[in-house]
């Protein structure tokens, strides 16, 4: 099908986009790459009256790392971020996540920030962002504010953004040397959505894990942090036993929904297996033993 009619606006800067959102009201949406929004419009599941295109705003285009982390502007394309040397050095879990998201032609057009703002609980990019941690920069007519990644995702396609705000950038926090990551998902074909996914990071020091992050996707209404699993990992020596115990804890207590791709019980099993395997990979990368 074709998209319903709408009015198109092009913002030349973040401030102009925020002003347009304020002026146009609740029925305005940000258009970045459009790789989630336009399919929804073509399917007539979304029909915003106004779109504000932010991809031409020079102040939203950037990507780069400094000591604090990786900064990604709202107009930066997924494929650019995926292959960027700063991403590979600072946030390789994000690069792995992007490489699993959609297809290369979709990633040429889609944006990292757009995927985070879209907040699909099954999607790769939000899970990896939450796993590594960072901040979302939101701008509205009243100014800008920083939202921790931990507080950004509130429910299915629902975020902490207020009406009239857009995400202008995200910053992914840097982890110290000695960090390893693992990202794994299971999907039926290369084209299909992940049924479940796991994004993990561990940091080892003196042969022990002193910091861990475990986030699951596709099993709840948000990318889901698993604190019980993290508590088991911290203080442990990297080992198959520790990873099995942490994976058990990650899958315990979740109640995924069933759909045509898999039952809730199947997702729960996937959550355990994917977490264990992702941790094993992360330990190898961190330089510990698995």
């Amino acid at each position, binding site marked *: *099908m*074709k*998209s*319903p*009619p*709408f*009015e*198109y606006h092009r913002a030349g800067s973040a401030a102009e986009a925020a002003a347009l959102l304020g002026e146009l009201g609740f029925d305005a949406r940000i*258009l970045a790459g*459009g*790789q989630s929004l*336009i*399919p929804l*419009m*073509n*399917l007539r599941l979304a029909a915003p009256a106004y*779109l504000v*295109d932010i*991809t031409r705003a020079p102040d939203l285009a950037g990507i780069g790392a400094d000591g604090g982390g990786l900064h990604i502007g709202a107009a930066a394309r997924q*494929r650019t971020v995926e292959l960027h040397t700063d991403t590979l050095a600072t946030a390789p879990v994000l690069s792995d996540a992007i490489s699993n998201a*959609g*297809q*290369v*032609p*979709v990633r*040429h*057009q889609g944006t990292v920030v757009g995927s985070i703002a879209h907040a699909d609980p099954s999607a790769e990019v939000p899970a990896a962002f939450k796993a590594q941690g960072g901040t979302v920069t939101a701008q509205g007519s009243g100014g800008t504010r920083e939202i921790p990644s931990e507080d950004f995702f509130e429910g299915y396609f629902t975020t902490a953004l207020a009406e009239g705000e857009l995400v202008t950038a995200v910053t992914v926090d840097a982890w110290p040397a000695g960090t390893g990551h693992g990202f794994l998902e299971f999907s039926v074909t*290369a*084209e299909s959505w992940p049924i479940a996914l796991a994004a993990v990071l561990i940091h080892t020091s003196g042969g022990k894990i002193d910091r861990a992050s475990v986030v699951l996707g596709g099993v709840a209404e948000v990318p889901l942090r698993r604190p019980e699993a993290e508590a088991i990992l911290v203080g442990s020596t990297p080992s198959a036993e520790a990873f099995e115990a942490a994976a058990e804890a990650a899958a315990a207590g979740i109640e995924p929904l069933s759909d045509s791709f898999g039952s809730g019980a199947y997702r729960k099993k996937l959550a355990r297996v994917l977490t264990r395997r992702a941790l094993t990979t992360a330990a190898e990368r961190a330089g510990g033993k698995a």
Partner: protein
Amino acid sequence: MSTHDITVTVNGTATSASVEARRSLADFLRHDLGLVGTHIGCEQGACGACTVLIGGRSVRSCIMFAVQADGAEIQTIESLAPGADLHPLQEAFRRHQGLQCGFCTPGMLLRGLELISDNPDLTAEEAREGISSNMCRCTGYQYIVDAVLDAAAEMRAEED
């Protein structure tokens, strides 16, 4: 609803037009420019039949509005063999029977061209992974992979 004046370069020719905001790039190419080689399959970005190259990079023209392409350099399937002679990639598809019904072929050819230009020495595995962005319901993909590899070899030889 709004309409917008855009200028795009399609297959080397600059074109200006007035488009409705909701006009997809695919519909713009087909209906406004008459370039019906770009096929429309799913209209939700899944199948890849509508693939075109923008600045040499593959995109789905069904989930991009024409107004977003303002100022872009677009390459469609019509550019591959402007004369009577097929492009080496098209010739390889013919030789290997890399198509049956032909619906996915324009998208497959442009994606194949991008893969070869990114990596002239691509392996069968890389070709298979690369074309996983595009659906074909006839061939089972094997003959398409064969054609892409054969064309890559031929294009490498032409370079030498």
